[in-house]
């Protein structure tokens, strides 16, 4: 017996339908066959991972129903078996998987709902960053200032969707007065998911021009725009936007030439 080969056969059996090689290592008896005994482990692994996905994506689960969700997770788990020891990191491919999952093409917004739920999951696990001395910005030479890039806090995510995913999400919360059947699904949204000291929040950012501009500003930062790029794009609005970003602590710090200035 070669342990590495045995483990290879087991991994193959856990994450594909091919369990003949894995079962060949196992003793059958009068109570359970080797295949059935292997199946206990396969079922347990898929159950553990499906449960974890259900906790991370409860609205997606509710949208498709528990039975469908569980079967869909089986396919997802086989396609994207975990490569991390940390549960909190499992599920980052779920939205991508849903976007190309043909049986759900009649619910085109579900992958964006998954993106929203993953963003909430990620933000929930983060703690607010310590304060940063932005006074250092004024000490830089003007020519250097144009090249700096701002860093956004880990406790905030920006999401854009062609669907009203915020209301879809709220409609699935306890005591919500939003009715799923009354939502105008095909309404584009810009969202900001963030955490204050107590809870996660979802802010809709396009109901007024100023919020929408602020979302665009933060989004440009998230895509790596330098201060010089931001000045060109946001012009006279830049000082106010920058002030708002720093005051809200969503702009966490800045880097110059790939070095963090601390």
């Amino acid at each position: 017996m070669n342990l590495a080969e045995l483990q290879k056969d087991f991994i193959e059996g856990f994450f594909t339908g091919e369990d003949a090689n894995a079962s060949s290592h196992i003793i059958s008896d009068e109570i359970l066959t080797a295949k059935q005994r292997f199946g206990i482990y396969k079922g347990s692994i898929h159950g553990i991972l499906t449960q974890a996905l259900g906790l991370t994506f409860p609205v997606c689960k509710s949208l498709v129903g528990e039975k469908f969700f569980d079967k869909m997770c089986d396919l997802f788990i086989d396609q994207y078996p975990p490569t991390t020891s940390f549960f909190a990191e499992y599920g980052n491919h779920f939205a991508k998987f849903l976007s190309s999952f043909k049986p759900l093409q009649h619910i085109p917004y579900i992958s964006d709902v998954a993106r929203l739920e993953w963003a909430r999951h990620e933000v929930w696990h983060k703690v607010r960053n310590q304060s940063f001395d932005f006074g250092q910005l004024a000490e830089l030479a003007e020519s250097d200032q144009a090249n700096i890039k701002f860093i956004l806090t880990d406790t905030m995510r920006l999401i854009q969707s062609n669907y009203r995913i915020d209301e879809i999400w709220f409609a699935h919360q306890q005591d919500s007065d939003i009715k799923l059947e009354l939502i105008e699904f095909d309404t584009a949204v810009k969202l900001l998911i963030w955490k204050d000291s107590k809870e996660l929040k979802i802010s809709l950012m396009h109901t007024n021009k100023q919020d929408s501009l602020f979302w665009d500003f933060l989004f440009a930062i998230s895509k790596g725009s330098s201060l010089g790029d931001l000045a060109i794009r946001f012009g006279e609005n830049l000082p106010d936007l920058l002030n708002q970003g720093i005051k809200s602590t969503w702009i966490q710090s800045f880097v110059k030439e790939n070095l963090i200035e601390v």
Partner: protein
Amino acid sequence: MITNYSFNKVQGCGIGLRLEHFEDINAQQPKIPWFEILSDNYLIEGTAQRNYLYQLRNNYPVTFHGVGLSIGSTDPLNMDYLKRLKKLKHEVQPAWVSDHLCWTSAHGIVTHDLIPLPYTETVVKHIVDRIKQVQDFLGEQIVIENVSSYLQFKSTEMSEWNFINEIIRQSDCRLLLDVNNIYVSAQNHKFDAEEYLFAMPAERVAEIHLAGYEDRGTHLLDTHSRPVTPPVWDLFKKAIQHVGHVPVLIEWDNDIPSLERVIKEANKAKSIQQGVIV
């Protein structure tokens, strides 16, 4: 964050720390002698859970219990995982670090489940080498737990209790004796639970685990979703006679009841322990 805690000794009957109980623990500060934390859940720095652990540690001793070590894997040891574990250990100062005698990952894939090993001399050597590497890296003895199993390998050459004894002897690690796991495996594979129990090296037992299983008809499944069953309590009494007064822990991971209910189970273990050891 590094604090020199004045207390890290663990004794009596503790419970496993679960997310569902965080608020109640904060509010009630219950009289629990210690908490066992699922260390894998706290290895990402800068998380809310990690901050919670720092707070908890100010009031309670803790032990670490992991799944991610995958001591039986043929992949190289996961040094990223071990470095994170060592850093957390340095910060939180647990009484000890434990994991399972099994494999959880191989060929780059992580199952998040406890998969058993064939009991052979070759596997003993493989595990012993890896435990020694881990102990050298962490700078202390680790504690390994016997797992429940639902299958037996054709290639197995020895009993599970001989396998465990050899590994503990050769690697100089300690044992987390899971009494429920012995019972579950004994029922599933038709061996004598007491023969297994009394073959365990008593002087090496750091801790006892108790939990509840589910009867699936063809086999018992170690679900940690129920109260401890009467036959496991009976086996626990024999375990105390064998190993003496070691710390005991209640694990409850699925269908998690109130904090009060889990504490009640720990208090039952405590009463039995005090009744058996006069």
